[in-house]
């Protein structure tokens, strides 16, 4: 039986759903304790769908910062999505017409990008919508629950859920590294650079450190192991 692309995307997105549910739960708590209403926190999650940018945005709102500051901070924290969008643009199926692109762009996040760019050979709109829909439901539901119900879940459950997204990342990374040594080396370099940045240059914020480490590692990979042909 052939599953539809949409259902397949939604099923692949379940770990993102669970991870987002727990991460955004924390965001909801944080937003409400910063003085926002549950509805405002919910709207931020629905319209932004990003973690670091939202957390920083809420602290700017709470501090009464300027709109220019807000715009610049969002630009800097989220600029990685431009790189991810460029990468995804290279593997879009021909069904991905402009309206689909304009709509699906909403859902480019670290996790959705990771799934869409590694699970599929060419990316179809239906698959990406499946991933985006289930992920967004997790993100806004968690925000609402965190904002409204705060600390009802036992702490050992919420803390264990903190690893869900990383578990999914490992499940994506490890299988291709078994088959391709070049990917193994890129993955190893990225981890090494990320650790070095975190402990040697702690003044660089987390989001930046990740993107610097990733660009450096992917650059080394492209230099050491350029890919032949189209695939």
């Amino acid at each position, binding site marked *: 039986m052939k599953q539809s692309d949409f259902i397949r995307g939604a099923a692949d997105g379940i770990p993102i759903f669970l991870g987002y549910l727990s991460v955004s739960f924390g965001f909801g708590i944080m937003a409400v304790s910063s003085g926002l209403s549950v509805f405002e926190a919910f709207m931020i999650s629905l319209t932004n769908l990003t973690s670091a940018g939202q957390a920083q945005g809420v602290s700017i709102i709470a501090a009464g910062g300027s709109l220019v500051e807000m715009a610049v901070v969002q*630009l800097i924290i989220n600029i990685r999505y431009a790189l991810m969008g460029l990468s995804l643009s290279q593997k879009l199926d021909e069904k991905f017409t402009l309206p689909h692109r304009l709509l699906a762009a909403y859902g*480019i996040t670290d996790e959705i990008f990771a799934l869409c760019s590694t699970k599929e050979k060419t990316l179809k709109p239906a698959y990406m919508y499946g991933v985006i829909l289930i992920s967004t439901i997790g993100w806004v539901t968690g925000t609402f629950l965190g904002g409204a119900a705060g600390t009802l879940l036992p702490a050992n459950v919420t803390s*264990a859920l903190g690893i*869900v997204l990383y578990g999914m990342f*490992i*499940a994506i990374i490890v299988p291709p590294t078994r088959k391709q040594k070049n990917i193994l080396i*890129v993955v190893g370099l990225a981890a090494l650079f990320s650790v070095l940045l975190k402990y040697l240059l702690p003044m660089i914020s987390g989001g930046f450190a*990740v993107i610097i480490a990733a660009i450096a590692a992917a650059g080394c990979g492209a230099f050491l192991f350029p890919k032949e042909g189209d695939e």
Partner: protein
Amino acid sequence: MSIAIYIAVMAGVTYLIRVLPFGFFRKKITSKWIKSFLYYVPYAVLSAMTVPAIFYSTGNIYTAIAGTGTALVLAYFNLPLIVVSLAAALAAFLAGFFI
């Protein structure tokens, strides 16, 4: 200042960043170096996001190591994403009782 305006600016900037290359970049990149670079980007991003953050993800380094080890073993045997990620959380949860 109205919170709605802050939210509109946040959402607008974030959407523009996402849509500009993804929505309008239509050329197939031909440079071999850039193609290779973009091919490696997702693996590099995932790895840099995971290490070392995974070891802080549960609030306790030992439960995080239990979860990470479980995930690595199950991922090595190519189990589905959902199995690997939930088993990692379960391992971290159970390890919490021994700390």
